[in-house]
């Protein structure tokens, strides 16, 4: 049975796990979860299909909401908007999509394909293109693979609709689609360049919806049993603890549709006496311990609530929070020279050679 039903309990877990994989960004999945609860209550159901089941000439829609997470806290995601972006792409290209996949499994975008799938009655493909969350369009496996970046559809809840028909590179796609997004109010529902089944099978990062559900189940189970949820994550994922401490400063700047800034931490427990600092561009990008870089993209840097084990986002982290910072291994596609050009520290403006926590 390749096609499997996703239960509402799975979606509850997905919301927790995807937030961990969001590495601080991607927006909290909570609002997506609320939409799914409402949809399931109305009788909608969603199914999950492994990419291996796709025919080479199937068409797959890749969806995400783009914009500043802060805006998503006010203009709450509406399940119908992402479905409209997919419908617009079908009208524009004439393709009929076999399934819908996530652009990024990290954060709220993990649930966008489920919302579109519920309205359009197609399965969700169990793969994404980041294995985490990233702020820009060229920071994907399909961009590393130099697959065609266009077209893209972009819609807004007020009824605004745009198609980016042709751009030469992913960087151009990022620039042009970002401008549209900023004009919409720094939030837009988008359907990315349609992918063939063959492309998804070759360049997709597979099994990530299942993985996010497993992480979420581990955290929720630990919470129920009053066990350490951070340990529970490390039991299902080969991660490492980087630091335990509390937030002592948060600096944020909203620039060109991104949230950039730095967070500083003072150590607690075994890390007492040390300081930690993480720079972010929507997501946690580079971490320094006592001034020395210790973790950086594409390694996943996850800041977790030390007690609840749930992820803490760059837009909501605040002074005094007690957190545990962990690293999770990155998708292998980003570890090649080409991959690092797209998502290594220099891609974010840090002149540091990539060194993995897991090397």
């Amino acid at each position: 049975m390749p096609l499997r039903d996703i239960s509402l309990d799975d979606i509850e877990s997905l919301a927790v796990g995807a937030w961990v994989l969001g590495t601080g960004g991607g927006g909290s999945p909570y609002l997506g979860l609320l939409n799914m609860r409402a949809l399931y209550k109305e009788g909608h159901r969603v199914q999950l299909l492994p990419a291996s089941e796709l025919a080479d000439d199937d068409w797959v829609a890749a969806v995400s909401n783009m914009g500043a997470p802060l805006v998503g806290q006010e203009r709450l995601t509406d399940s119908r908007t992402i479905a409209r972006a997919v419908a617009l792409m079908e009208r524009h290209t004439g393709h009929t999509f076999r399934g819908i996949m996530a652009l990024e499994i990290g954060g709220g975008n993990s649930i966008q394909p489920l919302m579109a799938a519920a309205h359009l009655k197609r399965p969700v493909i169990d793969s994404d293109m980041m294995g985490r969350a990233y702020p820009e369009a060229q920071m994907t496996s399909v961009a590393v693979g130099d697959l065609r970046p266009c077209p893209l559809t972009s819609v807004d809840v007020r009824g605004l609709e745009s198609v980016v028909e042709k751009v030469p590179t992913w960087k151009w796609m990022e620039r042009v689609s970002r401008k549209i997004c900023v004009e919409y109010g720094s939030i837009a529902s988008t359907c990315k360049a349609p992918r063939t089944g063959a492309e998804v099978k070759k360049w997709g990062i597979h099994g990530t919806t299942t993985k996010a559900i497993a992480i979420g189940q581990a955290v929720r189970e630990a919470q129920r049993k009053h066990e350490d949820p951070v340990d529970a994550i490390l039991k299902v994922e080969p991660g490492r603890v980087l630091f335990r401490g509390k937030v002592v400063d948060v600096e944020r700047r909203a620039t060109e549709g991104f949230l950039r800034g730095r967070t500083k931490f003072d150590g607690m427990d075994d890390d007492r006496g040390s300081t930690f600092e993480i720079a972010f561009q929507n997501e946690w990008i580079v971490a320094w311990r006592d001034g020395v870089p210790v973790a950086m993209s594409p390694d996943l840097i996850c800041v977790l609530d030390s007690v609840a084990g749930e992820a803490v986002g760059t837009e909501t982290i605040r002074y005094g929070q007690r957190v545990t910072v962990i690293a999770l291994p990155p998708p292998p596609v980003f570890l090649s020279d080409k991959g690092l050009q797209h998502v290594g520290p220099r891609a974010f403006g840090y002149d540091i050679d990539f060194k993995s926590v897991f090397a």
Partner: protein
Amino acid sequence: MRRIGIDVGGTNTDAVLIEEGKVIRAVKAPTSEDVTTGILDSLRSLGATGVLKGKGIDGVMIGTTHFINAVVQRRHLTKVAALRLGMPASASLPPFCDWPEDLAALVRGGVWMVEGGHEYDGRPFMPLDEAAVTTAAQEMKAAGLKSIGISSIFSPLDPSHERRAAELAAKVMPDAVITCSSDLGRIGLLERENAGLLNAALADLARDTIAAFEQAIRDSGIDAPLFITQNDGTVAEASQARRLPVYSFASGATNSMRGAAYLSGLQDAMVIDVGGTTTDVGQLKHGFPREANSVVKVGGVRTLFRMPDLLSIGLGGGSHVALDPLKVGPLSVGYRLLKEGIAFGGKQLTTTDIAVAAGLLALGDKAKVAHLDAATCRKVFDEAARLAEEAIDRMKTEAGDVPLIAVGGGAFLIPNKLPGVSQVIHVEHGDCANAVGAAIAQVSGECDQIFKDLSRTEALSAAQGIANDRAVSAGAARATLKTIESEDMPLAYLPGNSVRVRVRVVGDVAGS
């Protein structure tokens, strides 16, 4: 400085008089159904020795769990009309969408969503649909609703649509109580709106409760202003507390921890507050309760409140005791202890009966509990100590032994030695720690404004200066001022380098 602190709890109403930093007298009276009688009784008892005569009283500070209990117990809540400005955005997640069904059914008087709201950079998202607001108000009026909660997209950045909608609604419903979400704070539409709706649901209770407080103070012959303590350990004038009761939600717990710090002289310690029904365990850091990290739920509703991080267990002076098999709590006789406890002629064995039998408390009739031998008492105390120890261990943030301050009427249940605790401190007047915490509540100053063409550091320090000055003019001692909130939001759309900065400082009352 002479202040009276009062804590109106579910079981007892405690009152203390503090003069020049010293507790002069502390008393307890049972809480009454009408609130006023309990406060009058405790004030009468406080003044019984004549301590209130002569010099004036600078303020009466009351802390109460009334508002949070109303939400948790789903009582005395007002039906609310929810008006959200922001269509067509957020339509699939209407107001009340993430409330527990039972609470929503009690509070949801109707939902109206109209066009309006702002963008993150200050541009309007949609023009405010004034005609739709007026129509909505007419429908609310026809439905007999009297309390309105208004929310608008990005209202913390620009509250003008909420304010305008409130004006329009007031024209149709001049007597309505209106809560604007921008008065409650921060970015996060759903959580801010939830706080506003809870606040609106407390409109009648806040009006009645604060009127009862004022009446009780007047009737007791005390001529002093009334202040209500708030979640963050500061006080608000009665009129502001009536308008924004949600800010006084968790003040009971905050007061008891601040009172424990004050009475013990310790700034960093664990605190265990043993009441009649429940025991709260928290941690003091620099004299303030450690705050909860995650989103705080009140009665099942997500909010952005900053609340003390507490663990509550069902252990207290009124806890039911079963001997075979041994079980202590979580059921409790609560305020009916003086009727239902065995030492008082009742039928239910409680922890207080055990303490009377063991000679720890001189209450009721010792002969009625003479059948409880020393070994039985020991077993029950050991079980209570085990429950306390487990709770303390869960709340500790560091390994190693820490001092523990035991307060509350049921503090006799906490032994002088506990594993993981370096020292158990029982303090004088510890059974009235929350009233002490209320009496020493602090004064705050806030600055929330837009600064132009300043660096982040300059803007923050300018805001800090303004907030400090405001706190000092409200009565705080400058040397004790401390920043408890500091938030800056860049406004990219406005010309120049504009940033909205919100700083809140608190300090001790000068001369206390």
